[in-house]
């Protein structure tokens, strides 16, 4: 895995509904490796790539998919005193209270403000803040000042840098699903055996939106979906509640809240992993939704395989994943892709 690429991707903005910055970056990066490239009518970036061995038998269509959007915020209103009201996409209020954000293309810095804890009543300080009581402070003193900056209806992302942490870990925003994007870009750079399609989907965090039109557009026969999945393996959580482990290798799920992955593909992927000495694990708790929900259901549905990076604190400013896991997922992606025609 090219961690410089991953760092660049994580630092780009791509809130669901406002993915153009990150999609433009990806477009420029993959153009030389694509034999067909377009944005579909819903904004998804779709590439067609010829394989070393040409088309599959029976013109089988193989789709590699990930999503380019991240959780974030939208500015909904500017108050008279220059405070910005906002809405969030995909998160729990606990993860963004008091955080730093960057608004729009110009990356205007702001703070999601809360009342100082010293001034709270005892009970208030024990409660989870209500979203309604939050606002973004950019330091503007008036509505006019804020309006001039053009922040109305603009998006905002966490201001969280990409850093290496501990031993071989990464902390960054938007690992979900820039890690998947990075891996698909790597696969395109490396090359594939048989012709395939690559989709960088929009709107996944809004309910698997973009992937629905991708499914209709491509009507794949086989889909490999790259994601990040919640690892609950923090101190104090035991047993199956941990879902999957950071450091436990590539996650190959058999089922989640949105889809039942093809049992056949699940077993074959695990067999390939074993053959190649790739460490893998599965999810011991069935939760969460991914674009596989679209691919198994839309346009008649197709067999889908999920490959995921176990990640802690997904949908927050500081998600954490282990480099060795990302490498294992990438290795498995490459191995599965090489055998895709026969799967």
């Amino acid at each position, binding site marked *: 895995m090219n961690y410089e690429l991953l760092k660049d991707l994580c630092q780009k903005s791509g*809130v*669901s*509904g*406002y993915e153009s910055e990150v999609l433009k970056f990806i*477009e420029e990066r993959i*153009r030389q490796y*694509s*034999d*067909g*490239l*377009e*944005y*579909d*009518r*819903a*904004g998804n970036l*779709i590439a*067609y790539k010829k394989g070393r061995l040409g088309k599959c038998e029976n013109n089988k269509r193989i789709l590699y998919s990930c999503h380019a959007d991240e959780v974030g915020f*939208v*500015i*909904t*209103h500017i108050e008279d005193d220059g405070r910005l*009201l906002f*809405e*969030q*996409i995909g998160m729990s209020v606990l993860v963004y209270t008091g955080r730093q954000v960057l608004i729009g293309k110009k990356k205007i810095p702001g703070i999601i403000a809360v009342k100082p804890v010293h001034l709270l009543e005892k009970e208030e300080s024990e409660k989870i803040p209500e979203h309604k009581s939050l606002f973004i402070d950019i330091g503007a003193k008036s509505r006019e000042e804020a309006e001039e900056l053009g922040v*109305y*209806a603009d998006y905002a992302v966490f201001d969280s840098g990409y850093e290496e942490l501990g031993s071989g870990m990464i902390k960054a925003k938007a690992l979900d699903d820039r890690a998947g994007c990075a891996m698909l870009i790597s696969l395109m750079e490396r090359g594939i055996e048989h012709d395939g399609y690559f989709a960088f989907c929009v*709107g996944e965090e*809004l309910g698997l*939106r*973009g992937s*629905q*039109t991708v499914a*209709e*557009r*491509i009507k794949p026969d086989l889909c490999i979906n790259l994601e990040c999945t919640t690892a609950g393996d923090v101190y104090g959580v035991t047993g199956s509640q941990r879902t999957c482990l950071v450091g436990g290798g590539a996650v190959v799920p058999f089922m989640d809240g949105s889809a039942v992955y093809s049992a056949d593909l699940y077993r074959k992927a695990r067999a390939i992993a074993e053959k190649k000495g790739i460490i893998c694990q599965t999810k011991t708790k069935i939760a969460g939704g991914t674009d596989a929900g679209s691919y198994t259901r839309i346009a008649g549905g197709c067999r889908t395989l999920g490959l995921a990076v176990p990640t802690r604190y997904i949908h927050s400013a500081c998600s954490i994943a282990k480099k060795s896991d990302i490498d294992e997922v990438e290795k498995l992606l490459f191995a599965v892709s090489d055998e895709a025609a026969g799967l």
Partner: protein
Amino acid sequence: MKLDIEVYTEEIKKLYRMLAEIPAVSGKEECYAEKMRQTVLMYTDFFDKSEILAGGGLLFTHSCGVPNARKLLIDAHFDTVGFIVSEILDGGFVRVEAVGGIDRRLLFASEAEIYGRKTIKGVFVSTPPHLSKKDKDAEKKLPPLSEMFIDTGYTKEELCDIVSVGDACGFTFSYKELRNGIICGRSMDDRICAVAVLLAAKITSEDKNYVDKCDIIFSFSSAEEVNGSGGAVLGRLLADGAVVMDVNFGRDYEIAPQESYILGEGCGVSYSCTTSRALTDALVSCAEKSEIPLQKMVEPKSTGTNANYISNAYLGTPCAVLSIPEKYMHTAVEAVDIKDVYSCAKLLCEFFKVFPEFADNFEKSRKIIPMEGVLGNEL
């Protein structure tokens, strides 16, 4: 541009009353589709083709005659909220279930009509609060709809000849004009938007300077209040863009500014994650250039409109949402300002003129390396 609203005030009122007369509770659109089709075609001859879809929605097409012309879809929903008869009771009372979101607070002793073999009137009732049993809190809580009934004044036997389980019910139509251009009545959601679209169609057809280079499709869609299926089927039209017209909350005493528009201050355009920013911006700049009063709103994730369903149905269609501010949504007394209806109609007229260029640019910007011969349905 001078907005000659006086010319159209009476017309708007008349057209709205014609459209709101026709009841079409979600699920019953197919019963009234033909009547509505005739009503629209009688009003304007802008559309050269019309059809009724499987769900009971209507599609009116204006072909400009230019080959490979861009297609603009304007959607307003045909169905309204209402009720469905679930049981016919002794004493000529009828029990109902809600269809779509209903505000129960406004139902007590309100007038309703039941669309059975013939349309009959009734009054919504429930156990008078001072007579209800147990709980002293009962007075403060709203009874569920299952404990409210429509009193028809017939006997059960007479009623069974007229009404059966599954018949639709709705609010009675009582049109009122308030002060300052505010009109009120049932089904403003979404008939008043249809009024704006049809008015735009009429103005355009009478505009001698209009250069016809764009196909305009008006979809009067079904089932928006329940499942969006009427919107979902429109994906197959592959329009180059869709302007979805629906009503949105009018500023009122307890409604926050970021969640509402002010009646009379212009048409509403919303930004959201499920609409096309490019198309929305084009609509906004069209309004600003033509000096049409405009208000903006940011709807965080998705709009509560057909745009949700049309935007990612089939291969996707870029959508923008254009709203008429309305108070007292989903009641019998929905209220709008005629000026806003007119503003929307004028904006649509202006937008017809600039849309083809927008669509051409949008199309060009999408294709980077051609996918010819690869997918078989290059679009």
